[in-house]
């Protein structure tokens, strides 16, 4: 298995109950998994644990055979090679689109960096915007740049935290189709976190439904989205 997450436990310092309880998941290379859950269900925390922004109490994570964290060891986020697209994109406001995308590129010659930049710009179809600053872009454009920036260093795993929550509803539909096709084209393994069932349905190869930090169900979209507890949740 490409990604192996075993028995992840996480607890915030001031809380009495663990936020994440016994979270396990395996993923194939190139698979897209969506973690679906209400706000406060702990789904974003899982992404932060994967990226190394939080440290789990126990459990282990391996990607492509490399152990990136367990009870004894911890690889810091800058050395993990897990990319993340943030909810508010977090594009560096003092850098242009091009500098933002090139930010994560290391150990490359100038020409290679430039080549990678052009590739990414083409992928997100924004070549003519490369000298703009983030505040000069629309929400959808910002999101595409955030995607390109995270994709550029070719991470082993890419995670998305509520990527559509800041977009207009009609834009959301267009962008998520586009996003799925880009991800499938690059063949990158990725995890999405969302509370929107429609998003989950379009994007995911498999859906993980969590409640109160615990996995309730895992399976393909048709199977998961039909189940009773989810229907109740959707109607509540």
């Amino acid at each position, binding site marked *: 298995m490409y990604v192996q997450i075993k028995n992840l436990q996480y607890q915030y310092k001031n809380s009495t109950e663990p936020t994440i309880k016994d979270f396990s998941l395996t993923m194939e290379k190139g698979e897209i998994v969506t973690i679906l859950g209400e706000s406060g269900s702990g789904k974003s925390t899982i992404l932060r644990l994967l990226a190394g922004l939080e440290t789990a109490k126990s459990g282990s994570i391996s990607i492509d055979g*490399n152990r990136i964290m367990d009870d004894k060891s911890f690889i810091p986020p*800058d050395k993990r*090679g897990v990319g*993340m697209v943030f909810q508010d994109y977090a594009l560096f*406001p003092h850098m242009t689109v091009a500098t933002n995308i090139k930010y994560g590129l290391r150990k490359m010659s100038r020409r290679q960096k430039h080549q990678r930049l052009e590739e990414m710009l083409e992928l997100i179809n924004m070549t003519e915007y490369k000298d703009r600053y983030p505040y000069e872009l629309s929400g959808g454009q910002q999101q595409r740049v955030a995607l390109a920036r995270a994709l550029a*260093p070719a991470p082993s795993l890419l995670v998305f935290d509520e990527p559509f929550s800041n977009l207009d509803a009609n834009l959301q539909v267009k962008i998520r189709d586009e996003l799925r096709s880009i991800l499938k084209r690059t063949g990158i393994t990725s995890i999405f976190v969302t509370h929107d069932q429609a998003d989950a349905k379009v994007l995911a190869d498999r859906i993980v439904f969590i409640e109160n930090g615990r996995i309730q169900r895992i399976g393909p979209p048709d199977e998961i989205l039909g189940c009773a507890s989810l229907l109740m949740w959707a109607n509540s």
Partner: protein
Amino acid sequence: MKLQRRNQQINVWAILSFFLIIVILLPNLVIGVNFFAPANDNWEHIKEYLLLDIISNTVLILIFTGIATTLIGTSLAWIITVYKFPLRNFFKWGLILPLAIPPFIGAYTYHGIVNYTGIIQATLRNSFDIFIDQKYVNIMSIEGTIFIFTLFLYPYVYVMTKSFFENQSASLVENARLLGGNSWEVFFRVILPISRAAIIGSVTIVMLEIINDYGVVKYFGIQTFITAIFQTWFAMSDIEAAFKLAGTLMIVVIIILLLEKIIRGRKRFSYSTTKVRPIQAKQLKGKKAWFAFSYCFLIFGFAFLIPFLQLLQWAVMTYEKILNWDFLILVKNSFTVAAIAAILIVIIALIIANYTRIHQTFFSKIISRITILGYSIPGAIIAIGIITIFLALDDMMYAAFTFFGSDPAFILRTSLIMLVSAYIIRFLAVGYNNIEAGFEKVGNTFTEASTTLGTSSLGTFFKVDIPLIKGAIIGGFILVFVDILKELPLTMLLQPFNFSTLATRAFRYANDEMISEAASASLLIIFISGICIFFFHKVLDKGEQG
């Protein structure tokens, strides 16, 4: 990929922060330890004949200035926030301007205005043949001291309560109005109680400023802790007694800080909702508008315009004599030490603030608290602690030089290192607060984004964090720079031989009864501080609204 042992991540930021905090605490520890050393005769003498006077003077000044600044500061803040009247937009930041005048400059200026040869009495005498009994115009008294401190320190209360009022939901005030209270009732029964925390916080700052002051009380001849410390230290070279005084003063400071905590209690009123609607200012008409205008103008006049014009007149009288090469050296001295200390403070503040924001642990919270505490410690106490430490270091270095056969010299006690270190300890909190607020505003997401893109925390610090809070860094630098420019007691105690700043020279002139000669240096200080205040409260305020 290299695995790191989980519990062995050496955190450079934590180590640096810890080390810096120790350096900051050291002078205070020196005072604390020496406070318990056995007393000498001098101290017994001071305790028997002076201490009671010192304490009663200090308490009187603290209480009455506290009350007066509260009344003036909150009433001005209230009028400016809820009413529209002529020149309100000018007064909004103009009423902060008195902060640009260090109280000791205000003190000698007012003395120059009201004394026998001053403009008021001279005019009355020469034009109207009126003679005033000198006992009615003796400003060099406890009352005069309270008057001076009130005029030049009330802006602390004004600024803090104003921003509190502005951030309060308008509905509270509107509700109180609807329930049938008139303006006075709303002010006393609703506004004062809910803004208690802001008022207490700002009055505490006023009190700490008073305790720190040397210039006003020395010039007016009022015996307080700081003047006594200067006397025992300078005139009597009695270090033990100075330690005792400093220790006692520390206790006073701790009492004030504890009182603040107790009175403030858990009543930190603030809204959990982000939808805070600012209070809509009501247009005043006719007599009421003129009353509001006159009140603001009166305070502005006494606290800024009158002393400023008087200084201007003196400066015009004396500038030919004063503005020479020597004055330029003063300017250069002041700017250099202030700039060096401010740069170092900004760097230290950045390191500590970056650590405490990323690692929200118990340890980091303590570090953050201690950093802020430095501002509560009066300059004279820091100076004594610093001197003690540096003399010991110097002796050690002297011994080391002798041991290795090179020509020994006392390096530290004759250099600016002592002065700059003391500035850092005293004003670190000013820079830190600004930079911490900057970090808070930006949030942690950009930093996290940068690390997930493979940049180390140090690389992130330079490439992302610093550019994003550039404004806060510059702001912190300016605030510290101005504070150091105005600083008196620390500089008086620690300036090397043959080294003066604008502030210490102005004070020496004034103390030698060369008041008009002190005007040029004073005006330059006021001018630079004034520009910074204008920049902060006018330009930045606009920026936030737009």
